[in-house]
């Protein structure tokens, strides 16, 4: 839900909470039987198992091996770093040019990875959306603003930049590709069409000077990235510190 919606929803809920104190609502007093953990319905469970065979047949292929537990932690996490690196590297490959940054919204990713086999099914579950790759062109001053937006979130999946988040949740010592940001220089940043369309949670992206939509699905991009890595290990490197 966009933040503006969330604000309104909160206001409505606050109103609703205030309503609870009045006589309009009253609790029922009915004898009840508590039920926790309803056991699965045996017939439905059997059907699910039968159908599951089709899932495993279609999507059981091993894509990679996960060696460490990989998560989207803050200020940085292994899986968040990989998610952003994959966007950036693939964009560079497709455009045949240097792409300075990659950025993603961690809320779009559904799984952490546990040690063991990483199947196609798990990658589909990890990234259920059929989004595509987008490259945006921003000026250096906008890149600085973007880093501040990342810092305000306490960190986000980011590739190509390093900085420290101070006690005021501000980004300090920002380096992009190991150099300071030049305010008037043009930078390319890879992301998804969903992030580019909504500007959430990085609204400065809506001010991009140019946008290139690439016919590369985000899901297939990750399949290729993880397959290329083969063995997935801890990928934290201190790119965002706090």
């Amino acid at each position: 839900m966009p933040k503006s919606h969330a604000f309104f929803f909160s206001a409505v809920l606050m109103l609703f909470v205030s309503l609870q104190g009045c006589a309009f609502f009253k609790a029922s007093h009915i004898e009840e039987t508590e039920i926790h953990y309803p056991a699965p319905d045996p017939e439905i469970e059997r059907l699910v198992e039968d159908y599951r065979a089709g899932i495993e047949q279609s999507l059981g292929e091993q894509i990679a091996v996960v060696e460490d537990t990989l998560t989207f932690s803050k200020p940085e996490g292994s899986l968040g770093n990989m998610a952003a690196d994959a966007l950036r590297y693939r964009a560079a490959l497709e455009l045949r040019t240097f792409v300075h940054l990659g950025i993603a919204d961690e809320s779009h990713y559904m799984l952490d990875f546990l040690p063991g086999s990483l199947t196609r099914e798990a990658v589909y579950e990890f990234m259920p959306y059929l989004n595509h790759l987008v490259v945006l062109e921003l000026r250096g001053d906008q890149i600085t603003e973007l880093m501040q937006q990342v810092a305000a979130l306490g960190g986000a999946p980011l590739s190509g930049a390093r900085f420290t988040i101070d006690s005021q949740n501000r980004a300090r010592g920002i380096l992009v590709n190991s150099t300071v940001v030049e305010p008037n220089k043009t930078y390319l940043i890879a992301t998804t069409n969903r992030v580019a369309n909504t500007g959430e949670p990085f609204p400065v992206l809506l001010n991009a000077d140019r946008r290139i939509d690439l016919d590369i699905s985000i899901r297939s991009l990750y399949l290729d990235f993880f397959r290329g890595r083969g063995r997935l290990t801890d990928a934290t490197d201190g790119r965002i510190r706090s």
Partner: protein
Amino acid sequence: MMNRRDFLQRSAALAGSLAMPALFSRDRNSVKMQETDLTILYTNDTHARIEPFPENARRFAGLGGIARRASLIDKVRQTQKNVLLLDAGDIFHGTPWFDVYGGSVDLDLMTRMGYDAAAIGNHEFDRGPDGFAEAAQKAGFPFLAANYDVRNTPMNPFVERFIVREFSGFRVGIFGLGIGFSGLIDSANSGDVRAYDPIRNAETAVESLKEYYRCDIIICLSHLGFSYIQTRNDDLRLTERIQGIDIIIGGHTHTFMEEPLIFPRENGSSTLITHMGHSGVRVGRIDVSFGSENSGSPFSLSSRYYTIGDT
């Protein structure tokens, strides 16, 4: 026309002054043993979550699962003679099950569970009208959309504007509303289906169900979404504009409502809005009892939800 703030303030004022057309319960994870006149069980935005969330899911690990939902529903049916089982749309998309089966497994299992009707969510168009129709072959229940025109499309055999369910002593009208396509559904996927103003079509559906079919209770399965700042229609706006809907079971915005919103009206009626989040993590329940309150309303409502797999 009142603005939204005026409407909500008026609702609050009325709430303090009117008698009680609705009985409200916050109980969770329990099955009421006392029989009521009608029990409505409902879900929304189940999004192909056939199995419980895996242990490494970033949210809701271990929760949900259609087999556990079926078990809960069966237990409620054992204690209640009149049960409606409804869904507010977005059954499709969200897990590898949709990639492999295109929604047909969801609809097969929901049919076996005895779902009575579902709204059409925007994700029901993810494989276009042909893909919807292919999966809907497995649906033994109608999809409801009073504001979609599906004539001359493959969806036509599976979609109704509304249905009427007859019970001993009362009649329930159920209609559906789908969200506008703009910005949500690619024209290639909506095909020849046309979406029209949900407010105006809700008005005519309510009028038909009340005046012609003489329904005692009217339920709207809405996939409009709970609330937006922008001009897009939502459940709050629907409630502002339309009288006569008793219960709105909503979806799309994945809103986990701990309690329903109830908007009382000056004539003694009210509209209850409820959403149950997404992915089948929760099943909502509304119990309807006729003639138990001296409030001017012919029935009272009791609301609760179950968390599937909760401790």
